[in-house]
């Protein structure tokens, strides 16, 4: 019965059927490649996370222990600390980047002499490798570095603190470095969003007597919403995986005061060679990132559909 219907459908529209088959055929290699380089390692990491596997202790074998690694993580104070640090870093740095990025985008949108040059220069920090940025900022915040000199000379501080050896203060160079590096990226995204807003809206607002602040609140920000959401999601996905910057700046210290999840997972996996536990931590880093990415894809898709309509 179903077969017969299928046959009829096939007879009705042979062209469409052939096309979808061709599409599958053409996408096939790409799908295979993605499975090999992305999906397989992902699933393998998950499988590994269900095992007790210490590379250094072959006598313990590699037994399947179900969610044992995950329950160990839940009882591990260092894990919760790392989770807190990751969330804190993401919240603070991403909100600063959005505010400053918006300001920078508004500035760069105005027409002034040398705008092209200014836009290029503003993007420079984004073009630098994160490790180089981190070394630079560590240099600035080392004892006797430029930060101390600046704060002492301007009289803002009477004594130079040990930035990188203090549990709270060491966040300052970390967040500053991240904000410095990625604000231009946010600004670039928002600049593109700004240019998509119809100038006629501003004109209408002005005719209606709206001041600059009202225009910002009622025209710019609503019009910028899709771009803002994209920037927010891009940045938070990145911030949740933070590693290189902190690795170079504080190595997660003092103690573990600035250790993010990705670094704890690195320590468990590659320093302590606990493949099972480290994989579980890696999966825990991955899940929120994936969820955010899914939200992003949905939102990007819906805004695309809106535009098509």
């Amino acid at each position, binding site marked *: 019965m179903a077969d017969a219907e299928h046959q009829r459908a096939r007879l009705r529209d042979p062209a469409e059927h052939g096309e979808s088959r061709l599409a599958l055929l053409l996408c096939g290699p790409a799908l295979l490649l993605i499975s090999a380089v992305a999906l397989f390692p992902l699933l393998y990491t998950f499988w590994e996370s269900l095992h007790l596997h210490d590379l*250094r*202790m072959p006598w313990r074998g590699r037994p399947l222990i179900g969610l044992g690694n995950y329950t160990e993580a839940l009882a591990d104070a260092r894990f919760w600390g790392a989770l807190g640090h990751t969330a804190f870093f993401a919240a603070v740095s991403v909100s600063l980047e959005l505010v400053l990025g918006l300001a920078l985008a508004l500035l760069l949108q105005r027409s002034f002499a040398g705008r092209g040059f200014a836009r290029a220069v503003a993007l420079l920090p984004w073009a630098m490798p994160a490790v180089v940025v981190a070394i630079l900022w560590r240099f600035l915040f080392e004892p006797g570095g430029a930060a101390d000199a600046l704060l002492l000379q301007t009289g803002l501080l009477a004594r130079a603190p040990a930035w990188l*050896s203090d549990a709270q203060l060491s966040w300052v160079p970390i967040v500053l470095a991240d904000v410095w590096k990625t604000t231009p990226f946010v600004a670039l995204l928002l600049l593109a969003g700004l240019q998509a807003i119809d100038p006629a809206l501003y004109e209408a607002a002005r005719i209606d007597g709206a001041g600059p602040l009202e225009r910002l609140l009622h025209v710019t920000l609503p019009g910028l919403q899709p771009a803002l959401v994209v920037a927010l999601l891009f940045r938070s996905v990145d911030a949740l995986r933070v590693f290189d910057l902190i690795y170079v700046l504080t190595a997660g210290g*003092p103690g573990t005061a600035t250790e993010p999840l990705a670094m704890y997972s690195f320590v468990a996996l590659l320093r302590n060679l606990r493949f099972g536990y480290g994989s579980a931590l890696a999966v825990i880093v991955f899940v929120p990132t994936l969820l955010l990415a899914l939200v992003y894809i949905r939102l990007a898709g819906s805004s695309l559909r809106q535009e098509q309509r």
Partner: protein
Amino acid sequence: MARVLLACVLAAACACAREKPQGIVVTFPGSSVGAEADVLRAQLARFMRQHPEIRVVQQRTPDSGDQRHQLYVQWLNARARDPDILQLDVVWTPEFAAAGWLLPLERFAPPVHEFFPATIAANRYRGRLYALPWFVDVGMLYYRSDVVGAPPRSHAELVQHAQRARRAGFDYGLVWQGARYEGLVTVFLEYLTAFGGEVLDATGRAALDTPAARAALQAMRSAIDSGLVPRAALSWQEEQTRFAFQNGRAPFMRNWPYAYPLLQQPDSRVRGRFAVSAMPAGSGGRPAAALGGSQLAINGRSDQPQAAYRVIAFLTAPAQMLERARIAGQFPPRHALYARPELARALPIDPVQVQAIIASAVARPVTPVYAELSDILQVHLHRCLSGQESASQALRAADREIDALLSRVSLLPRRDHEGARGG
């Protein structure tokens, strides 16, 4: 394709057939930079001239200890037959031995009594010997001989001298490695021994929640809090402390022997104005020098263990050790050599002093999970020194976590069977 492959195989086979039977090949991955590499290359060439039937193939490995360790673990875990000879850091021996990756050396009857007992003890695991010491590294207290006439005899005297020197214009009283890494553990080990404590007790349980350990860590914490040791030292490794000492900013420094020849270079501000000793004893302890250095061991799956041991015996023979001391400045682990005038000529430091410091050598805990144990210590020591935990909080937490680690890997002895470890 298949034909090309076949041709290759045939060509390779012919090439093999044409050469003389190759005999024994021993592979040896090891450090490949600087004077160390030069002296090793020369010695292996000499070995092969004396033993034409054995060919030693050197393999390049990363210079960083962590990376070499990771590489070794991957090879050995994959049950590779190569490399035959392994160059081990002193804290890796128990880990590799427990994993069954090393060949016990008793069958070759190595002359263990000719080496410093501490260096042999560090290479034993559950009563068996798994590696021979190649060269010794020890933590030393460098002091400015133009500021203090003699090395401090006690920890209290060290603090006094350091405080006086600060008042006299030195930026810091004492510098040591305070960053969160292995170096911090060796510094702590010296303080701990100086105050009569230990990391693991005789039964193999953590012994850090003790008055001695608290006194040791409190001494380190007070040094930071009083400014005797700069707070910046919490991110310092060996080189930063050497810069501070070499630029005349501190009268005391804890560092390894590598710094000695560098401090004696013509452009050094402290050239000829410093000397070394062991970290002096605090109350209830003894002078202490953390033990480091390299060992040579044989892969448990090696198909040439006899030849591999001959290479090791050659490299650890007195002649080669003296040469290594002369060219690379590394201390030999054979005690008899310290009476030889050749060694006095070879080393930048007086061998009598070196021998005295090595006599105070204290090994890090011998356990297959040393790296994780050290990780726990690093975190809590660093938290304490940066003011996030008190000395007793840090030690109690470290003690508990180390016991939890040992019990997780079934190495924690039960209290009712003290001394009897499960095998």
